[in-house]
């Protein structure tokens, strides 16, 4: 393997890993806030891609107008999602009910998208392009790096930094964390847990939707984008339960491994990720990093 191939595969893997990491971070945020795993995480990403596609391709808005509108939409959808799939079920008689409801939501989102926009995938132009509309590629020596990947890496790092800062430094973040750790006590202290949960869902949807916009040029806007969540799940398990840093690192590992495995076993891409997962389950079932609130999951 030449160095240039190695570098381009590595960057490719890292950028995909960053997408998984953003999804995985959203998963962890939800697990911490409401104690459930969201099986519609990938479909939230898909919805994000479709909304951006609608704003960008159908309404032809420029990027700087499109993005604020998209974010408002994402926040709204996140809150609607919370009030339909989580809120009526928070006192369900068994805990699997909420998870199964998110699965139902995943089917609903996929089908709704198919009914509204048709089942054929739509092409999305890359953010930075050449004059002829093809995605721009950066050449460093012999290494070719698509600029889209670098943008994904940059945006991903900014988002992760912002979310970590929100939870560790800001007062609002501390309120949210308190409500996560003990909703009852937080309610007694006057923290409205419904608002913090709403905020968490909105943030998660914004993160997922942005991911959708970022991956759309590569995978096209299609209803099967939701399958990306499987790798994010694997990354979260590898990284450890309940810790954001762990999930991010686990997901990056998954992305890189997946990217290198395409070189050797193109048909069995999923298998390598899963084998990695099994190795981790056997050797280190608690994951790489131990979470703050491990028991909730």
């Amino acid at each position: 393997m030449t160095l240039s191939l190695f570098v381009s595969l590595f960057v490719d893997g890292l950028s995909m890993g960053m997408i998984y990491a953003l999804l995985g971070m959203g998963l962890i945020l939800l697990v911490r806030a409401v104690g459930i795993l969201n099986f519609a995480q990938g479909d939230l990403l898909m919805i994000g891609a479709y909304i951006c596609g609608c704003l960008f391709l159908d309404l032809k808005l420029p990027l700087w107008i499109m993005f604020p509108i998209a974010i408002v939409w994402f926040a709204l959808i996140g809150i609607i999602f919370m009030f339909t799939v989580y809120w009526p079920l928070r006192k369900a008689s068994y805990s699997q009910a909420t998870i199964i409801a998110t699965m139902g939501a995943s089917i609903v989102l996929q089908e709704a998208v198919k009914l509204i926009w048709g089942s054929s995938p739509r092409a999305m132009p890359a953010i930075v392009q050449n004059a002829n509309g093809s995605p721009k590629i950066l050449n460093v020596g012999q290494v070719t790096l698509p600029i889209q990947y670098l943008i994904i890496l940059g945006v991903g790092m900014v988002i992760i930094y912002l979310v970590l800062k929100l939870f560790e430094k800001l007062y609002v973040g501390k309120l949210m964390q308190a409500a996560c750790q003990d909703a009852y006590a937080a309610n007694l202290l006057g923290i409205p847990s419904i608002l913090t949960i709403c905020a968490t869902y909105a943030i998660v949807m914004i993160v997922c939707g942005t991911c959708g916009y970022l991956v759309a040029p590569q995978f096209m806007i299609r209803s099967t984008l939701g399958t990306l969540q499987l790798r994010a799940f694997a990354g979260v398990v590898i990284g450890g339960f309940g810790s954001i840093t762990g999930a991010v690192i686990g997901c990056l590992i998954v992305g890189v491994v997946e990217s290198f495995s395409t070189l050797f076993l193109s048909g069995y891409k999923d298998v390598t990720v899963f084998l990695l997962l099994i190795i981790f389950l056997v050797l280190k079932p608690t994951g790489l990093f131990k979470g703050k609130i491990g028991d909730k999951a």
Partner: protein
Amino acid sequence: MAEKKLELKNKRFTGPFTLIISVVVFYLVVKIMCRSLYSQMVVNMALVFCLVAYSVSVMLGMCGELSFAGVAFMGIGAFTIANLTTGRFGFKISPLGAFLVVIPVATFIAFIIGLILLRLKGTFFSFSTIALVQVAYTFFNNYRPLFGGVDGISGIPSVRILGKQLTNHYLWFPYLLVFVVFVGLVVEHIRNTQLGRSMASCRDNETAARVLGVNVYMTKVIAFTISGVLSAMGGALYSMLIRYASADMFTYDTSAKYLIMAMFGGVQSTIGAFIGALIVQILPQVLKVFQRYFQLIWGVSIILLMVFMPEGLTGIFRMALKRRKSRKKGRISVIQEKGEE
């Protein structure tokens, strides 16, 4: 006291009796209703999927762990049948013989996978089973020597039972019905054994179960194995019925269907799985007009089911029964109080 004894005796007497009656009634109803081969096929499919719904009921209803692995084990069962009966290994076994091979194969594989995956708990276990389904699908779709790749394996010979060749769905139906009811009885029996009770204790309160000396991990592994074998039997029968096995019969998307079957009827009861499988399989045929929206309706109905009746149809039935009983009891106690006055 005497009344209670009488009731028990009655139950022992009426239990098998009502079962046989209801099976016969079901048989006759299907015989009368199913005028075409197609409708008979739909009912047969429902019976086969019922086995998979049982497996969900064992894992989720008894043990409290949500597993999607059923589809992967269905695939294992179906491809075992396909390989053994079409002579791809250089020898041929009759389909029934191959069916007997499926059971130990599935037991072994499910046990090993259960040992690995059940190191995870709760939702993390659930999505590791999704990963399993995805990997199994990748293998089914790509590995030609065992699974036939994209084309699948066709040409599974028709089954011969008691010297009779089961060439169409009418002939299949009675055997399938008897088998499914039999497996249902076995599952119902498991519920009332020590194993079933330890599974229930793992579901309700793991810590308490551990304190009482239940090996939670092993109990869950055994439950996973049982549910794997049930699914594998379902998959094997599926491939024997349509005489073909291919990867796209066993995708992750189809696993949602089996889950709904079990949830709809009531995940805590065996009869619920049976009823749910029938309804979920037959309803789309009745409401063919809405075919375009069917997936959407499924999704919405899952959410509504979870919100309004998480215990399913049998749960509602049970609740109504309980309410009636308590009302009756209330009346009796009122009468007794009056008598005491």
